[in-house]
């Protein structure tokens, strides 16, 4: 009886592990080459006290073993015609220290986005989408603690890689949001790692897009096949050759 119970537990655990891991895509994005030095940000008098350390631009954030952060990973082919309900957990874009946090993020169409001002200074939030169906917006968050969770959802209704957000009061403040109509996307962490979970079995084109290295091109892609086992897909992003 004891043995049977143990066997059942092992089977259940194995099964649950298989459910969790099948459809997982993990990997690392590595930067090849030496990026140009980042530019220091010249803060205004009101923002300087909020940033006692020297702050630079975040074009190339490189971590351990040349892992490249802030790369948006998404399925560019293979999910056509499939519909997914929007995620319900809200994503937060925080204005803190006269900068956007995070710098790059991904959201689903229809997913709640909370835009928050944690600074004791005024900010305006100006979104500049380029895809038809998405509407440019510009609104103010004049006080510390101001939160808006409706503007994004009512304005951004189509997938777009990437929508730029900027603050015109502080022109060095900008961030990017990758918008998808499915939940299978990720942004690489400080060391270039990412994980996409729950991708149904099938063959897909997985794309990695870095704002500076890829610009107006779609980014780098590779084909992946998701079956019973987790998939690993690594990418290499090259620093563009000097002009």
């Amino acid at each position, binding site marked *: 009886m004891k043995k049977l119970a143990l066997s059942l537990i092992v089977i259940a655990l194995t099964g649950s592990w298989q459910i969790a891991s099948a459809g997982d895509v993990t990997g690392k994005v590595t930067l090849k080459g030496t990026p*140009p*030095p*980042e*530019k*220091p*940000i*010249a803060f*205004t*008098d*009101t*923002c300087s006290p909020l940033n006692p350390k020297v702050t630079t*631009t975040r*074009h190339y954030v490189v971590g351990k073993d040349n892992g490249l952060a802030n790369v948006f990973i998404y399925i560019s082919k293979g999910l056509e015609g499939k519909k997914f309900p929007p995620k319900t957990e809200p994503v937060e874009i925080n204005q803190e220290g006269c900068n956007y946090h995070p710098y790059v993020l991904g959201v689903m169409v229809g997913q709640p986005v909370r835009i928050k001002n944690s600074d004791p*200074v*005024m900010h*305006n939030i*100006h979104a*500049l989408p380029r895809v038809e169906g998405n509407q*440019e*917006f*510009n*609104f*103010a968050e*004049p006080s510390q603690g101001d939160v808006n969770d409706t503007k994004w959802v009512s304005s951004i209704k189509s997938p777009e890689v990437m929508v*730029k957000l*900027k*603050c*015109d*009061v*502080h*022109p*060095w*403040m*900008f961030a990017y949001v990758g918008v998808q109509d499915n939940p299978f996307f990720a942004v690489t962490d400080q060391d270039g790692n990412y994980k996409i979970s729950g991708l149904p079995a099938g063959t897909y084109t997985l794309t990695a897009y870095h704002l*500076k*290295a*890829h*610009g*107006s*091109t779609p980014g780098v892609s590779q084909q992946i096949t998701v079956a019973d086992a987790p998939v690993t897909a690594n990418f290499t992003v090259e620093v*563009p*050759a*000097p*002009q």
Partner: protein
Amino acid sequence: MTFAIVNPKPAEKIGLKRFAVFTALMTFVLVWMGGLVTSKGVGLSVPDWPNSYGYNMFFFPVSKWMGGIFYEHTHRLAASTVGFLTLVLAHWLFGYKSRPALRWGGGLFILTGTGLMPKFPTYGIESISVGVLALFVSFFWPKCAPAPKWLRVLGIVALIAVIAQGVLGGLRVTLLAAALGIFHATLAQLFFLLVSAIALFQMDFWRRLPVHTEADRHHLRLFFLLPTCLIFAQLAVGATMRHQHAGLSIPDFPAAYGQWWPDTSPAAVQRYNENRMEAVSYNPITAFQIDLQMAHRLMALVIFVAVGVCAGRAGHFLGFRHPLTRLACLWLGLILTQVFLGAATIWTGKSADVATAHVACGALCLVTGGLSSIVSFRMLGSPVAQGVAEKKELTSLLPSSSITGGL
């Protein structure tokens, strides 16, 4: 072209002259401030209009004028000041005839304000204040004679233009339409020219100018007018470049990406964008923007040559002491300064102050060209008309028999 003054009031004439010049100077300051707003990329830092962050524009606390808001908000306040000055100028050109208009207008504002009070108390108070002020002023309004009709019309056109300019600027903010910014910037230049011309017509210099004493046998008037038109087109191109919000589409000068004509293939443009490490949120550059900057450079060369030729011809045919030659030389000096500022804009990586000086100097180039053209048309008569007049004069001197014989 002279004033028909019913009851000359020298002090008022001097007052109008000074006021018109002051309005033109303030307009120049406004153009400068508008240029600074675009150069700093802070045009949308105040996302609402006509309010500022929900406050009535005139009561927006100074403590909140931070970062880009300072430039945008002070630009709005300066624009309101210029609008008010233009309103007064347009009225002043009507002389004593403005008194009834001020009274009726004042009454209308008070009535409107009273109507607005229950729902929009702030606007109601503003409207009533303006009305009371207009009524009050109407009793002390200068009793000088009205300016000639054409000049009064110019005053009205200036008033319409400044209102349109304000609305255009506001709509650019509320509609988030970048293209409107181009029209806003271009109309600003035209408005500056118009107000400067009104100021010119008040000057003693203008009244003393001999009218059509010389025939324009060498088409000098066209040599003033055509480069002025080119400068206006150049300013429109410049406004288009600036309102792409993409920074410098070509970062070097006199070469362009190290070449005489840059590669604008998609691969090359992609490479240019990848290599930019901007600290502010510029839009990516495009091939169109690169071509536009090249057109701007070529046009600058054409304008420089055209103004140089104009100054040379004026000196050659009119002499270097002639007012038109002096104006042309001043113009050429401004164009040279403008070329240098254009180059400096690139060499400094589009430093906001230098780029704004480039905009302001461009406005001065247009105004100098425009006013010089007006002066040239006043001083130099049409060669055809002059020829006919001379022929008539000669004919009148000849005995009638010789005319008959000639026929």
